[in-house]
C-alpha cells in the first residue's frame, strides 16, 4: 500500500454514506487521530440507516402490478375480463330463465320468417327454437371461458414442457423439437385446428379444447425455448455453474423462472385467440353437437347465419360478445407485456 501508484485508487476517502461503510471503520483502517470523528460519523450513519430501514424495496411482481394499474388500456382490458368472468361465474343467478327450456309464449309465434323479438319477460327475445336468448347469451359466457382457459392452460403446459426441454438441452434435442414445432407453425392455425377436430371420430367440446390447445403449443414452445437459450448464456447461470449447482436445479431454479415472464404474457394474449378459435370451430359446425349447450360461436354460426334476414340480432349479440371479450383479453395481455417485459419499459 506504500507505493505511490496505489494512492489514487485504493486510498480513497471513506466518507461514504453507505451504511456498509460502518463495517469498514471497525477494521481499524482509519488513522488513529480520527478515531473519535469516526465514532461520531458511525453513530450518524446508523441513524441514517435506521431512518431508511423500513422503507424496503418492492418485489418485481408488485412493481409490474403498479405499472399495470397506471396503464389505462390495461384497466379497460382488466375491467372487461373481470366483468366477463363474473358473468360466467354467476350465470345461473343472472340468467332469467333456463337456457335449454323452450317457452310456449315464444314457440307459438315462431315461424320461418318470424322470430319473436324483445318483450318484458324475454329482454332479447327468442332464439329460433323458442328459448330465451338472453339466458343463452349469459350461459354462453361460461362455455367460452371454460374452453378458452382450458385450451390455453393445456397449450401452455405442453408448450412449456417442449420449450424447456429444447432450451435446456440444446443440440440435437432442440433441433428435433423445433423442427416439429416448425411443421405445426407452417400450417395456418385455424386450418390445423379444423384438421385436428376432423380427425376425431366424434366431436365434443373436448375435441375443440384439445385442437385449440395443440394449435397454441408451438407458439409457447418457441417463445420459451428462445428465452431459455438466452438465460443459458446469462451471467447468473454461469455464476450458478461456477458454484457447482446441479444441472437440474440450474434449469428449474435459475433458467425457467427467469424465462417464464414472456410466456405468461403470451398466455393472456393466447386466451383471446383461443376464444376466437373455439368460436370459429363452433361457427363452422365442428364444435359440440349438443344443441342444448349455449355457445357463442354456435349461436353466431348456426342461428345467426340462417336467420340473419329474419332477425339479425341473433348474429349481432354473440358476435359483439366474442369481439368484446377477445378485445378485453388482448388489452390486458398487452398491458401485462408492457408492465413485465423489461424491453418495453420506459
Amino acid at each position, binding site marked *: 500500500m506504500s507505493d505511490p501508484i496505489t494512492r*489514487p*485508487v485504493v*486510498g480513497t476517502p471513506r466518507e*461514504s454514506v453507505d451504511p456498509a461503510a460502518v463495517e469498514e471503520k471497525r477494521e481499524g483502517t482509519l488513522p488513529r487521530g480520527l478515531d473519535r470523528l469516526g465514532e461520531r460519523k458511525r453513530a450518524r450513519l446508523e441513524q441514517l440507516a435506521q431512518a431508511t430501514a423500513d422503507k*424496503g424495496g418492492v418485489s418485481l411482481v408488485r412493481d409490474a402490478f403498479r405499472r399495470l394499474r397506471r396503464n389505462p388500456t390495461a384497466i379497460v382490458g382488466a375491467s372487461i375480463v373481470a366483468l366477463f368472468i363474473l358473468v360466467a361465474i354467476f350465470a345461473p343467478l343472472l340468467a332469467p330463465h333456463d337456457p335449454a327450456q323452450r317457452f310456449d309464449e315464444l314457440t307459438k309465434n315462431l315461424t320461418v320468417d318470424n322470430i319473436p323479438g324483445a318483450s318484458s319477460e324475454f329482454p332479447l327475445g327468442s332464439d329460433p327454437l323458442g328459448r330465451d336468448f338472453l339466458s343463452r347469451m349469459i350461459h354462453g359466457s361460461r362455455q367460452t371461458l371454460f374452453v378458452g382457459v382450458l385450451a390455453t392452460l393445456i397449450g401452455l403446459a405442453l408448450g412449456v414442457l417442449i420449450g424447456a426441454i429444447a432450451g435446456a438441452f440444446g443440440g440435437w434435442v432442440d433441433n428435433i423439437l423445433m423442427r416439429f414445432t416448425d411443421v405445426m407453425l407452417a400450417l395456418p392455425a385455424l386450418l390445423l385446428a379444423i384438421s385436428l377436430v376432423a380427425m376425431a371420430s366424434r366431436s365434443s367440446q373436448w375435441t375443440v379444447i384439445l385442437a385449440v390447445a395443440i394449435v397454441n403449443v408451438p407458439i409457447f414452445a418457441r417463445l420459451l425455448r428462445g428465452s431459455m437459450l438466452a438465460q443459458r448464456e446469462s451471467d447468473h447461470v454461469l455464476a450458478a455453474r461456477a458454484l457447482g449447482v*446441479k444441472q437440474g436445479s440450474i434449469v428449474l431454479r435459475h433458467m425457467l423462472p427467469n424465462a417464464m415472464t414472456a410466456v405468461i404474457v403470451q398466455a393472456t394474449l393466447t386466451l383471446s385467440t383461443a376464444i376466437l378459435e373455439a368460436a370459429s370451430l363452433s361457427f363452422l359446425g365442428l364444435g359440440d353437437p349438443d344443441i342444448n349447450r349455449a355457445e357463442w360461436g354456435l349461436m353466431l354460426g348456426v342461428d345467426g347465419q340462417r336467420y340473419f334476414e329474419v332477425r339479425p340480432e341473433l348474429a349481432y349479440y354473440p358476435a359483439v360478445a366474442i369481439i368484446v371479450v377477445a378485445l378485453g383479453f388482448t388489452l390486458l395481455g398487452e398491458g401485462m407485456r408492457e408492465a413485465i417485459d423489461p424491453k418495453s419499459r420506459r
Partner: protein
Amino acid sequence: MSLLDVRDLSVVFQRRGERPFTAVDKVSFSVEPGQTVGLVGESGCGKSVTSLAIMGLLPRRGNKVTGEVNFDGADLLKLRPDDMRDRRGRDIGMIFQDPLSSLNPVVPIGTQVAEVLERHRGMDRKAAMKESRELLDAVGIPDPMRRLKEYPHQISGGMRQRALIAIALACKPRLLIADEPTTALDVTIQAQILTLLKQLVDETGTALIMITHDLGVVAGLCDTVNVLYGGKVVERAARHELFARPRHPYTHGLLSSVPRLDSPRGERLHAIRGSVADNIPWVEGCAFAPRCDNVVDACLEGTPPLDPTATGGDLRCNNPVSEEVAVP
C-alpha cells in the same frame, strides 16, 4: 506443493470455417496456499478465459483446452464433469464482474446463499438459512436478517458484491478466483470490497487469484503478479519488484499510464500507442512489437522465450526496460 499449478494452459477457439483463435497461449503459473496472485492485462488478453478454463466453465463446443491444471493432486481438465461440478463452489469459488447480473433476479439473496450450502455441505434449508445469515453478517451486510428475504435488485451494488463474496466463500474453498470483482462498482465501494476480500482471504487462508486490469487493485492485494499480453505471460514478478522495476515495456507502459496525483501539473498522461488490434501473431515475433518503444530486429523473429530474471521473476522480452529506469 503448490495449491494450484497451471502448466502450459492453452485455449483455442475454433469455429467451423474460421481461422482458429488462440485466446490463451501456454500460460503457466502457480498459486501457493494462502497466496494472492494477480493476472493483469488489458481487455482481450485472455485473463477471463484463463479463469473459466481453470473452472471448466468454457462451453463444451467450439474450443480446445490443452495443458494441465493441477489442483490438490488432480488435473482439473481431466476430471469427469460430475466430479468437477462437486469441486466447483466447494474447493474453488469464483466471483464475477457484474454483481447484479451474476445473481438470480427472481430468487431472494438468502435462498441463493443457502443453495450452495445445501448443495455442498448437505445442510437442510433451516440450517442453511441460519448459516447464510451469519455469512452475510461476516461480509459486512447490515441487517442481514432482512436482506435474506430481499431480491438482488433491492440492494445496492456494493452489497450485491458482498453477497456474491458470501456465496463464493460459503463452503470455505481453498481457492477463490475473482474476475474483476470491482470493475462494476464505484471507487469508494471498490476500496471497501478490496479491503473485505483481503481480510477474508487472510482470515480463512484462502488462496486468491485476482484477475484485473486495474493496477491499483494489484498493488493493494497481490503477492505475485502475472502480466498477460495477447494470451501469453510476458512478465511475472513479486508485487514490489514489479512496481518498482517493471522490465517488460508493456508493464512499464501500463504503469506509466496510471494517472497520479503527485505528477507535475500540466504533464500529459502517458499512453501506450496503438491498440490490441495491432497485435501480430506470437509465431511471427513478439505480439507487442508493433506497439513497443523498445522494439529491436529480434522482436520480429519468432516468440521471445520466458526467461527467469535475476530478481526471481520471469520475463519475455528481447530488449527489456533497463533496471535503472524507474517508473517516471
